[in-house]
Every structure is written in structure tokens, then in C-alpha cells.
């Protein structure tokens, strides 16, 4: 048993060093580009794909999280500008929810700084499973109850008075909506902020699910508003990471450039791809991320 452990241990460490040597500006740029592209196609976001790949190359997880956080600001700003202009994003809903996500982002980034790397691998995998499970269950609930549009508008949401409308080109009609259950949806965004800040990701799917299932926003408004909020959460977490010493302008710059370009290309390809292909791709990538992080976590524990 001891001999087997020694052989495995030596092989794993040698492989990691060999892979780490492959990492340079070009490989990070290529990884960031494809992560941005796939992240934009699947809705998972570039950073949540980029970090597990770089970690697979032997890149330290805390360095990856801290530098990827900056690229989240870039992809958010780049992709949300058009939706804000077209009035699909609801800035008022975003500004209410940002009060919670920035607090979560700062808490999350601080948690990462004080948490041992080995735990972060498991946390990454666990959170991805939890987020996907939450989104799946909420979607199922929404399907079975058909709509929550008849939901009673509570007093706090009435006071907030956040509403809007947008023209849906696919349905060829104007869709009107009012924000509901804001007293629950707001604080829930702290959890989304903690996830985003601690893992250096946007956690966009999770934020979208909260806005859809709790606040009652239409899917398009929820996903574009979530995209808009991600940048602000990213800034809050980045302010913590700057003081950590993990930010490297060369790496952060390469990641930001790659993911932004990748997500721009992804948004151009998306309308030409079948939804079923996107779903399969999304499931495959999620399984890869979870498996990669669990493998790294178990390997790190072993060593």
C-alpha cells in the first residue's frame, strides 16, 4: 500500500510540474478564450470554466480565483452593455440586489483568503452541485406551477415598486412584470455574492434562478440583470483580492482579454446553435468541472 502510494504520489507531482511548465501567456490566453466562449454559450460564465482548467494545469487555486475575478468584471461589462441599452436589463432591480451581492462578494473573497486551498477545491465542486440542483428544482417547480405571476405582491415589494416591460422578439409581444418577494430575494443574493466572491466566478446561473423563482422576473430580464450585477460583485471581491498579493497584472490582463474576446465570439455563435446541443455541452462541462475539482481536492489531501 505504501509503495503504491509513493508511486502514485510521485507520478501526480511529476505530472503537475510538467503541466505547470506548459503554462505561459499563450496557453492562458487560449484557455481564457475558450472558457469565455463556452461560458457564454452555456451560461456557466468564463471564469467558472477557466479556473478548473488552469488548476488542472497545476496553477495555484487562490492565484486563479483572484485573477479570474477581474476577468468577470470585463465579461459582465462587455456583455451587459447592449442589454441595458435595449432596456431588457432592469437597472433598478439590479441596484437593489447589488446592495446584497457586494456584501456577499467581500465576505466570500475574505473566506477564500483564510481558507486552505484543499478545502477550496471541494467548496468549488460542492457549490457547483448545489447551484445546479437549486436551478433544476426551481425550474421544475416553475414548470409544474406554470407561472408565479399571480403571486401576491407583498408590502415591501410594493414600497420598492420595481417594474418594467420589454419587447420579446421571439414571442412577438411586450412582456410586463413587477418584482415580488424582494424581502426574500434580496438577502438570498448575499449567498450568491459569497459564492461569486469566494470562487472568483460570476455565479450568474444562481443569481438568475433567484431572480426568476423568488422575485418573479421573466427569464430574459433575470439573466441580463444578473449579468449586469456580476460586474459590481466582481469589483467588491476584487478590492479584497488586491490586498492579498495574489493579483498578477500580466495574468489578470491575459485572462480578462481572453475571456472577453471568447464571450464576444460566443454571443455571435449562440443564435446559430441548437438549444439541445447547448444543454448537452453545459452538462458535460459542469461534470468536468466537478470531477476536476474533486480530483484535485482528493489528490491534495493525499499528498
Amino acid at each position, binding site marked *: 500500500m505504501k509503495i503504491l502510494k509513493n508511486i502514485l504520489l510521485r507520478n501526480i507531482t511529476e505530472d503537475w510540474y510538467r503541466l505547470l511548465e506548459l503554462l505561459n501567456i499563450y496557453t492562458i490566453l487560449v484557455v481564457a478564450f475558450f472558457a469565455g466562449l463556452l461560458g457564454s454559450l452555456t451560461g456557466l460564465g468564463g471564469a467558472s470554466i477557466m479556473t478548473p482548467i488552469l488548476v488542472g494545469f497545476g496553477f495555484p487555486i487562490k*492565484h486563479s480565483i483572484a485573477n479570474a475575478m477581474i476577468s468577470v468584471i470585463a465579461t*459582465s461589462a462587455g456583455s451587459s*452593455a447592449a442589454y441595458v441599452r435595449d432596456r431588457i436589463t432592469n437597472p433598478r432591480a439590479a441596484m437593489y440586489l*447589488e446592495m446584497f451581492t457586494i456584501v456577499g462578494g467581500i465576505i466570500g473573497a475574505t473566506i477564500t483568503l483564510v481558507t486552505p486551498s484543499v478545502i477550496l477545491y471541494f467548496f468549488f465542486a460542492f457549490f457547483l452541485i448545489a447551484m445546479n440542483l437549486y436551478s433544476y428544482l426551481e425550474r421544475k417547480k416553475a414548470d409544474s406551477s406554470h407561472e408565479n405571476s399571480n403571486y401576491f405582491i407583498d408590502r415591501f415589494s410594493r414600497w420598492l415598486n420595481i417594474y418594467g416591460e420589454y419587447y420579446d422578439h421571439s414571442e412577438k409581444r411586450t412582456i410586463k412584470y413587477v418584482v415580488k418577494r424582494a424581502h426574500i430575494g434580496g438577502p438570498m443574493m448575499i449567498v450568491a455574492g459569497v459564492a461569486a466572491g469566494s470562487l472568483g466566478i460570476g455565479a450568474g446561473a444562481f443569481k438568475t434562478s433567484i431572480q426568476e423563482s423568488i422575485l418573479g422576473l421573466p427569464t430574459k430580464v433575470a439573466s441580463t440583470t444578473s449579468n449586469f450585477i456580476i460586474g459590481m460583485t466582481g469589483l467588491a471581491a476584487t478590492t479584497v483580492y*488586491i490586498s492579498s498579493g495574489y493579483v498578477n497584472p500580466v495574468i489578470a490582463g*491575459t485572462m480578462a482579454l481572453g475571456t472577453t474576446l471568447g464571450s464576444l465570439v460566443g454571443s455571435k455563435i449562440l443564435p446559430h446553435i441548437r438549444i439541445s446541443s447547448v444543454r448537452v455541452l453545459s452538462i458535460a462541462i459542469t461534470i468536468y468541472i466537478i470531477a476536476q475539482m474533486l480530483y484535485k481536492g482528493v489528490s491534495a489531501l493525499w499528498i
Partner: protein
Amino acid sequence: MDLEILLSIILITGVLLSLVFLVIGLSLYLILEGSRIDLGIEFRYTNLISWIEAVPRMSMYQKLLSIGLIILISTPYIRAITSFIWFMYHRDKKFSLFTLFVIIILTLSILGIIRVF
């Protein structure tokens, strides 16, 4: 001007401007230093302000990369300030307070005053 148009202009200007600096900075880095990355490089700025203050003393590629990243990081902050001014101008007290809260928390965090632990 509509808030949506203002925010859209800020976002697109911020990200495009920062990408220009990042492309030039990275190209210069590749020419001068090659493609190698060094994880051991010291980045010891205690907060965003001390990073900005250090920019004039940096080498050219470091300067360009830092300016690109600082513009990028500042973009959501500028949009929060713009929203606050817009809501104040339109006498929307509720949302002026919401955006003011966001600005205060971010400012404290940028200055390194907020620490959870």
C-alpha cells in the same frame, strides 16, 4: 439622458478602453519578457489607491497593464456614482440611498478599511 443609455455608454467605454491598454501592454510584455509567467512576482499594494499611486514608477508594460486593469475595475464604480447622481437629479430618494450604500461599501473596501476578519 436615460439612465439605461448612460450606463450602457459607461460599460462599453470602460471595457473597450481597458482592452486597448491590455492588448498593448501584453504585446509589449511578450516582446520584452517573452511568454513566460512568474507567479513569484511581488504584488504588494495594500489597496486600489496604492496600486494607482505606484503606476508612474512602473516599467512601460506594467504601467499599461495596470492602467488597463484599473480602468476595468473602476468601471462598475463609475456606473454606481453615475446612477447615484442620476437618481439624485430625478429626486428618487429611495434609489439614491440604495446606490449611496453601494458606493460607501465599495469606497471603504477600495480604501482597505473593510475587513471581514
